[in-house]
């Protein structure tokens, strides 16, 4: 038996409170986000949750103009891959940055999006 790995539900509970969380392998030190069962580097099952600063830079982005039905009212909106300062990357919705200012290399800060039981990952301006 090992300590339970942080679940997606627990991840989003922390996210809703403003805390972005990764997991670090107790065996080899690999960092991963979101959590998964086995360490992809050494296949150990010895994760510890690690709070992240929540700051990073955009490594790629797109502006979605034809959206799925559930998001049609939001379009156009930007989605970006953000490389966090700890070195791991995650996809998020860009908010409060004009679409023509979204760019590769732009620094951004994590912010939780949504309400009640549906939290998702967002990034807004750093300043």
């Amino acid at each position, binding site marked *: 038996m090992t300590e339970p790995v942080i679940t997606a539900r627990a991840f989003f509970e922390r996210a809703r409170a403003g805390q972005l969380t990764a997991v670090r392998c107790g065996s080899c030190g690999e960092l991963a986000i979101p959590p998964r069962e086995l360490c992809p580097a050494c296949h150990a099952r010895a994760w510890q949750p690690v709070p992240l600063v929540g700051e990073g830079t955009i490594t790629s982005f797109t502006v*979605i103009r034809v959206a799925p039905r559930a998001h049609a009212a939001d379009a156009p909106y930007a989605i970006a891959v953000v490389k966090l300062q700890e070195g791991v990357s*995650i*996809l998020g919705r860009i908010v409060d940055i004009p679409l023509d200012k979204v760019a590769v290399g732009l620094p951004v800060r994590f912010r939780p999006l949504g309400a009640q039981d549906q939290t998702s990952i967002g990034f807004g301006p750093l300043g």
Partner: protein
Amino acid sequence: MRRVAVIGVGVTKFGLHDRTSAELFADAAGDALTDAGIAASAVQALYYGNVVGGETEHQLHTGPQAASVLGIPSVPTTRFETACASSHAAFRHAVMEIGAGVSDVILVGGAERVLNVSTAESTEYFAYASDAVWEQPLGLTFPGVFALIARAHMEKYGTTEAQMAAVAVKNHRHGALNPKAQFQKQITIDQVLRSAYVADPLKLLDCCPFSDGGAAVVLASEEVARRHRKPVWVLASAAASDWMLLGDKRDLARVPATERAAAAAYRQAGLGPTDVDVVELHDCFTIAEIVATEGLGLFEPGAGGRAAETGLTSLGGEVPVNPSGGLKAKGHPIGATGAAQIAEIVTQLRGEAGPRQVDGARTGLTHTLGGNTATVLVSLFGRD
């Protein structure tokens, strides 16, 4: 492993149809059996690709349903779902079953029907191939996935929107020579560049269409194949997977699953990229073709855009890519696509492709990618 051959192929026209996916498959399968000159009673299994039948047709259990509509209800039937690579995954498993000596004749195919629902609905259903917890809630779409890849490729290698447009223009030029293609008309670079953005930097004419259609191929052991005309030999069939989440992909400008599947296929066949005469690859978006030509080793990483722009991948070029018109012009009924690509390569290697024939083609390659680049299949084919 025993040698395996493709002895028959069938493809419906792609585009809008007033038939169910099972009917479309059965139409293609009937043609494939006729083409093979083999009785339906010889078929020992059906391996079938279908992706969004549950959503667009309220139909699960699509394998036996397709077999019933075709009229061969008693053969063991399995549906494969690896997003857009489904019928290529089905093909690989059939190759292994015949190669292992379990069966001698297997029918492989797939079909999809999506034009009976709205674009907003199909956009949503295709997005189901991305992660439902981490990515779908952000409003990520299929074009969005490849737009992120395109942006990364542009940043890393200087690939341009005009180079991507060149892929669309080339594939429409090829598609105009294919009577089964959804779009049989040529377009210009200017039309592509002036079409509306769907997911920046991808525009409408960078994207393949939504399509209905079916495709099927008949596979046989060498012993059976020798009794049929022009067997086309399966020289290799390989699969690879990769992380689902875009954040987990270390370099968005490359597709590691393509590189791994290609390496495995070349190793199986004892061939390399320079041995390939004709390629059908997964151009769901123009950037996908550029990245695939690099991942398959046809061009160096970063050189795919220039290769398309300078005509190296056109009919008559150094290595013709997507003579059928590709997904872009031929159409992309996702469950049928892998089998349809194989049907095109078989037709090319038989020398029966008419005005789109690649002269003297002896070795062909098919590449099919699933969804967010987490599944890739690569197969190699040769003739006697």
